[in-house]
C-alpha cells in the first residue's frame, strides 16, 4: 500500500493567520484567550476568537470563510492542483457548527444576511461541495460531523482513500466558528472556565472555546516524489474507537482513548517506545484530562515519563471539529522548529500521572514520531500518528 505523506498545510486561528505565524506563536507562548466580542453576552467565559474575518458574499458563513483561508494556504504550499488531474484529487471535510452563527443572527436576532439559507447553514455536505467547487476538483468528496473529532475522522478516511489508491491526493480539512449555541451549550454542561484554561494542571477549572480552520494535503509518496513536492511529514497510523459509556462524560478509565491510541500504534506497526511527543486532546476539564492521562500512561507504560505532551487548547481554545487537525498542524511544526511548545499556564501538573510536560518556556527537541488525540461527544475517539519525513 502507498505511503501517505503531507504535502500541504494551512491554518487560521486566533493566534495565527498562517502556518509560519503559527510556528512563531507557539514558540513565543502567544495566546488570545480573551472575552468574546463576536456576539453580545453577559457571560464572562473567554474564548480564542479570530479578529476581522473576511466573509465571502456568495456563501456567507464565517465557518466557510475560515475554511477558505486555511485551504488556500494548504493548496499554495502543496501545488497539487497544478500537478494532479482533478479527478484524482478528493476532499474530506469535517465540521460541526457550520452556519450556526448566521442561523442565530438571522433567525433569532432577525438580521438580514444576503445569501443565507437555513438549509445550507445546517448542511455540512453543502460546505464541502462549495470547497470542492472552489478547488475545481472532481474526485470523491466526504463530509464528517462527529463533533470534536470531525477533522481527525476526516483525516482517517482521507488516509484510507490514498492508501487504497482511490485518489492520488486528498485535501482534508475542517473549520468551526464560534457561535452562541456552543458557547452557552458548553456552559450548560458546566465545563467552561472563566479564566484562560490550564490543561493537565492540578487546579484546572475547565475549557475555553475557540475557532479556527486547518487543512492538510495528503498524498501518496510515489506521486509526491514524482512531482517533486515538499513533504512535511508522513501519516503512518490512525485509530478510531468509541467509549460506549456516556454522551458527554468520557469513560473514567480512559478505555476508549486507550483503544484509539493502541489501534493507531498497531496500524503504524511501531512500538509505544517510538512515540516521542503527544499533542493531547487536553480540554482542561477534570474528567477529560484525567481519562486521557490514564489512557496515555496505560499505553506508554514506563515510557510515559520520557514523552513530551502539549495541550494546544491552552493557545487556541477548543476549536471543536477542527481541534484535531489544528493539534496535528501544531505538532507537525515541531518537526521543523525542533521545539516543543509548553502547555500554557500549566504550573502544577497533576501528580497522579507520569506524563512529561515541557517547562513553561518550552523545550528544544526534535521529535521523530508524534501522536495526536481528538475526542468527542458520545465518546468518539480518534488518534493519528505522524512521522518526520526524511528525504529518501
Amino acid at each position, binding site marked *: 500500500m502507498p505511503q501517505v505523506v503531507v504535502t500541504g498545510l494551512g491554518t487560521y486561528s486566533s493566534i495565527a493567520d498562517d502556518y509560519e505565524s503559527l510556528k512563531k506563536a507557539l514558540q513565543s507562548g502567544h495566546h488570545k484567550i480573551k472575552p468574546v466580542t463576536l456576539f453580545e453576552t453577559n457571560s464572562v467565559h473567554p474564548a480564542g476568537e479570530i479578529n476581522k474575518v473576511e466573509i465571502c458574499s456568495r456563501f456567507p458563513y464565517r465557518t466557510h470563510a475560515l475554511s477558505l483561508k486555511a485551504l488556500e494556504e494548504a493548496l499554495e504550499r502543496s501545488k497539487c492542483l497544478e500537478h494532479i488531474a482533478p479527478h484524482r484529487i478528493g476532499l474530506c471535510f469535517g465540521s460541526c457548527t457550520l452556519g450556526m452563527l448566521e*442561523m442565530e443572527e438571522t433567525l433569532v436576532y432577525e438580521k438580514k444576511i444576503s445569501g443565507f439559507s437555513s438549509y445550507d447553514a445546517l448542511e455540512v*455536505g453543502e460546505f464541502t461541495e462549495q470547497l470542492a467547487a472552489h478547488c475545481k*476538483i472532481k474526485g470523491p468528496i466526504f463530509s464528517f460531523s462527529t463533533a470534536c473529532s470531525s477533522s481527525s475522522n476526516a483525516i482517517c478516511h482521507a488516509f*484510507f482513500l490514498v492508501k487504497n489508491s482511490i485518489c492520488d491526493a486528498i485535501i482534508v480539512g475542517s473549520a468551526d466558528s464560534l457561535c452562541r*449555541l456552543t458557547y*452557552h*451549550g458548553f456552559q*450548560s454542561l458546566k465545563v467552561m472556565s472563566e479564566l484562560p484554561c490550564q490543561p493537565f494542571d492540578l487546579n484546572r477549572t475547565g475549557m475555553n472555546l475557540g475557532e479556527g480552520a486547518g487543512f492538510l494535503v495528503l498524498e501518496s509518496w510515489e506521486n509526491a516524489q514524482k512531482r517533486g513536492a515538499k513533504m512535511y511529514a508522513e501519516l503512518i497510523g490512525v485509530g478510531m474507537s468509541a467509549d460506549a459509556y456516556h454522551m458527554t462524560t468520557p469513560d473514567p478509565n480512559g478505555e476508549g482513548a486507550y483503544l484509539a491510541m493502541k*489501534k493507531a500504534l498497531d496500524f503504524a506497526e511501531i512500538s509505544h517506545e517510538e512515540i516521542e511527543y503527544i499533542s493531547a486532546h487536553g480540554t482542561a476539564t477534570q474528567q477529560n484530562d484525567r481519562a486521557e492521562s490514564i489512557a496515555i500512561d496505560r499505553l506508554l507504560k514506563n515510557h510515559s515519563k520520557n514523552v513530551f505532551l502539549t495541550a494546544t487548547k491552552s493557545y487556541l481554545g477548543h476549536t471543536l471539529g477542527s481541534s484535531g487537525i489544528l493539534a496535528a498542524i501544531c505538532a507537525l511544526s515541531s518537526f521543523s522548529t525542533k521545539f516543543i511548545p509548553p502547555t500554557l499556564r500549566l504550573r502544577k501538573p497533576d501528580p497522579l500521572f507520569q506524563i512529561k510536560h515541557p517547562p513553561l518556556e518550552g523545550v528544544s527537541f526534535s521529535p521523530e514520531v508524534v501522536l495526536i488525540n481528538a475526542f468527542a461527544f458520545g465518546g468518539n475517539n480518534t488518534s493519528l500518528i505522524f512521522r518526520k519525513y526524511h528525504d529518501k
Partner: protein
Amino acid sequence: MTNSEPLVITGMGIISSQGSDKESFSINCLREKKPTICSRTVEFFDKKYQQKIYDLSPFEERVIPPRMKRRMSQMSRMVAVCALSCLEDAHIDRENLDENMGIVIGTGLGEHHALKGLLSQVKSNPSFISPTLFHNSVHNAPASYLGMILGIKGPTLTVSQQDHTFENALATACPLITNNGSALVLVGACDVFFDFGVIDKTKKKAAVFSSGSYFFLLESESNARKRNAKSRTHITLLPSRKLSKGETVSHYASEIVSFLELKSQKLSSIDLVFLVGISNAINQGIIVELLSHLFSTPVYVQLYTSLHSNPSQGGEYLALALVLLEKQRFICENLRIFHKDFRNCSIPKRETKKILFISLSEKCLSRAFLMEK
C-alpha cells in the same frame, strides 16, 4: 481481511414511509408507480407528501433501555430500532458482538429538532440551555447512542453529503473492514421530517422531507462464511467523480471499465443498471452519455426515484436494489432497455444476478456500486 477481499451485505433493516419492515417495504415499492424523471421544486414537497414516523413500538421497548430512551430524540430511537432489526436480520447475537464492530451513519441534516429547541432557548434565556438538548444536537448523537446500546468500541462515524448521504456512508464503511480491522460494520442512514418554516420564517414554502432509516450489515465474505451467514449481495465500490458533459463522462466510463477489469469483472455480465438520482435534464443527458460509453449491447435499466424524498434516500435505493435481486421482480413501468443506437430491441430474459448501481447527485457527482447475488 485483505484489501482485495470481497465485501458482502448480510442484513437489512428498514423503517420508512414505504414500510416499517422489509416485507411491507418490498410490497409497497414494487406496487407503486414511480415517476421516472422528476424535476423537484420546493412546491413538490407539499404537506401531502410529508411522512412522519411516530410509532416505533413494540420493537423500541425491547431494544432501548428505558433510562436511555427518555433522553433520546426520535431520530436516535429510529436509528437504534432500525439498526437492531438489521442485526436480527443478519442473525447477529447482540450478547456476543465483536467489540471492534464499526458504525457509520449518514444523515443529511442531523438533529434539527434539537437545534430548533436550542435556538429558541438561545433567544429566550441563554443561561438556561438544556444540557441534554445540547448534546443531542450534534450529528453524531444517534451513532453514539447506538454504540452505547450495543456496547461496542469500534469506529463510530457520522457522515453527511446531501443527496449522496447514504452512498457516502457506505463508501466510508468499506475501508473500516478492508483497512481498519473491523469484522462487521453497521452502515445506515436516517433523516426525520422537519418543516424549515418552523425556524426560518423567511421561507415562503417550507421544504418538507420524509422520515426514514435504513441499515445494512457489511462484512467481508470470509467473515460471513465463517459465521454461516447468508449473503444478500456482494458489493464493490466503483470510482466516484463529478461529471460534466463530454470528456469527463468518457474518462469516467473508461475508469469504471478498467476498475472492473482489475476485479475480473466484465460489463457484458451486468444484467441490470439500477439508476437513481436523475432529477433534471442535465443529469439525464449525462447518464445517457455514460451508458452509451459503458454498454455497446442493450441492457435493462431500472429507473427509480423515491416519492418520499430525504437526504438519506440512498438507503432506500439500496434496499430496493436488494429486493430486486432477491425477488427477481421489477417496477415494470420504469424498466427500460437502453441501447446506444436507440434501436428497438429486446433482450432475452435471464436471471438478474449482477446490478450496476449508479446514483447521480443533483450536482452531477456519481457514486456507483457493483452488486452481485
